[in-house]
């Protein structure tokens, strides 16, 4: 039963001082699924992401990640880099690339971060280092092709457009060979054409690479088109779960959105 899950989140509570950011959140993410978490601003979506990736440490509850070969791994208490090594990749709300480096270098850093370090080898550029470099280069080019950034490989990443930055972040995440890719508002700041391409890319990641997708998004159109199942967060709690059609029909969700911004609620309809 559990083997078909990728994330199993049980009763997670996260506090900052007296402020409760997540309260008793439970959710599950099936392997191979495109799952979305929606909710108004400040509902705790990014807190949830940061808890799933080891950036925040929730005080209560458990987060189990079923990694390679469905091996269960407890996320809470793990550092962010360990979570990444276990097979969780992510993008950030406001893109966080290594902005002074080229597109190629950005992805390559992701591709090579999981191998042992080998400083001495690097200092003499030994055969193992050369082999590693060659492998990372090949993998990087493959991924740049996959996301469609091959022609911008040598561009400094800070000068990429918003849409390209998202692609870059996705490629960098994929370079770490993840089981699941967490996307934090991938459509923010992109134009309609880029949005369509992004939707296609995300689907392609799941279909061709078999990577499960968990995304947070404000853009309802994109979510409804892409997600197979949704969770709705409000004030740090899960208030609804279901398929896009079920969510559209859910009164509590409409209520939550009417309480925040009408335009979002309009989109929901």
């Amino acid at each position: 039963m559990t083997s078909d899950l990728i994330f199993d989140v049980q009763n997670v509570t996260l506090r900052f001082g007296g402020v409760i950011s997540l309260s008793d959140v439970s959710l599950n993410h099936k392997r191979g699924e495109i799952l979305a978490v929606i909710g108004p601003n400040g509902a705790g979506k990014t807190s949830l992401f940061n808890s799933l990736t080891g950036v925040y440490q929730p005080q209560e509850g458990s987060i189990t990640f079923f990694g390679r070969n469905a091996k269960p791994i407890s996320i809470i208490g793990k550092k962010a880099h360990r979570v990444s090594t276990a097979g969780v990749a992510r993008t950030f709300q406001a893109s966080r690339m290594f902005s002074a480096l080229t597109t190629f270098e950005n992805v390559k850093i992701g591709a090579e971060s999981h191998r042992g370090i080998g400083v001495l080898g690097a200092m003499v550029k030994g055969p193992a280092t050369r082999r590693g470099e060659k492998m990372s280069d090949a993998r990087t080019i493959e991924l740049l092709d996959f996301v469609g950034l091959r022609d911008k490989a040598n561009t400094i990443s800070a000068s990429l457009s918003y849409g390209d930055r998202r692609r870059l972040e996705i490629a960098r995440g994929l370079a770490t060979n993840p089981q699941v890719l967490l996307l934090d508002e991938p459509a923010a700041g992109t134009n309609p054409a880029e949005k369509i391409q992004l939707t296609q890319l995300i689907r392609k990641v799941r279909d061709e690479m078999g990577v499960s997708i968990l995304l947070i998004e404000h853009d309802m159109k994109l979510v409804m088109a892409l997600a197979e199942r949704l969770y709705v967060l409000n004030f740090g709690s899960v208030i609804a779960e279901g398929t896009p059609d079920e969510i559209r029909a859910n009164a509590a969700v409409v209520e939550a959105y009417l309480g925040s911004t009408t335009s979002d609620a309009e989109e929901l309809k």
Partner: protein
Amino acid sequence: MIASFWRNPHARRLGISIVAIAVLELMTGPPGNSEAPTAGIRESFLEASSFFGLFRTARWVVFFFVAILMFAIWTLLLWKGSRIRSGISSVLAAPRAASQRRPVRWGVGLALLVLAFMMPHIETDPFWQAAMVEQIAVYVLLAIGLNVVVGFAGLLDLGFVAFYAIGAYTTAWVTGALPTPPPFHIHFNPFFAIPMAIGIAMLAGIILGAPTLRLRGDYLAIVTLGFGEIITIFANNLYGITGGSQGSNPIPHPSLHLGPIHYVWGLKPVPYYYLTLTFVVIFLVAFSLLEHSRVGRAWTAIREDEVAAESVGINPLKYKVMAFAIGASTAGFAGVVTASQSNQIFPSSFTLQFSINILVLVIFGGMGSIAGVVIGALIIQTAYSFLLHSPPQGYQPADLYMYLGALLVIMMIFRPAGLVPSRRRKREIRLSESGEGHMDEVLTGDTP
């Protein structure tokens, strides 16, 4: 009235020129003392001086002339600056493009290396031969080492001297020159001190680094500052171990007996020069390979955005500790050279001033740029040796740190990426200034 005067851009430029030159006048003037605190200041302005060899006059006249000249050049640059600048860059475009090409870089590097090896035969003055080791080669080595910490990993280490001291005291220890007996009571040849000093300095780097490198950058600076100071306190007070302020006993010179090769380093500086130069070359090659390896890229990633780096599986602490240990190892080796060459070591040689001195070499040359720090170190240390060799009137050796301090401020205002900037670093600074990137978060921990 003063405010409105200050708002006039011409008057402002004139004012700044005069004040800047007046400060320079003070810096180059004769020293004062506490009995007559104003004497140094007064004489800085009033002392007789030659007006560019034309006639004799008071210093302030000369400097006032320089200030006016500075104002004139500044105004000219503002007026026609863009044209002059574009002219200069078009003239420089060809050599700059050439310098990017690999064969050219290798050629220049090789030529410099040959020159470096010939140097003791070109310059045979004993002062300069000693300076080549003690003031230049060793400092180049140290600058390359600190560059790994400050330039590559972006960690402001103000306690670099600690590892240098550890290297020097390890040498004294293994050769039996400390009150505490050497390991296994064997008096080693200082040659064996090289691996041991490098190892112990690295170990110290790891021990200090593992807990403190979690701290944000500005706190780390203060902690390393304190650590450098504490090493001096221990060296000064642990009489039974270090010999206290009296210093160590005489340290023997290294000798090499490798099969048919027998060589004894003596009091002459030249053999030490070659020894140091060899290591400089080794470290240069190793560190530039490192910079362009995955380790170097990981350092860049951490420096730019630690959170993003972690999200792709880079363990920041591990890489930072590694940078610290690698930097420490070069300082440790430099300590061996200094100890075995100077014969005796004292706690008073290992001061905070030393750490800052090395930092200036890195900042001036261009942090993160290996060629830059080598050039920076060569320029500053050669200038320092010149001042030591034939000090101009009014100059005291300790004044050096005043100039170095001023140089740091000037570099940060006008050329923060250094004389020969690393391209990555320059880009980072520019991006950070335009609000891109997350460099500050890493430094001050202002995570949102």
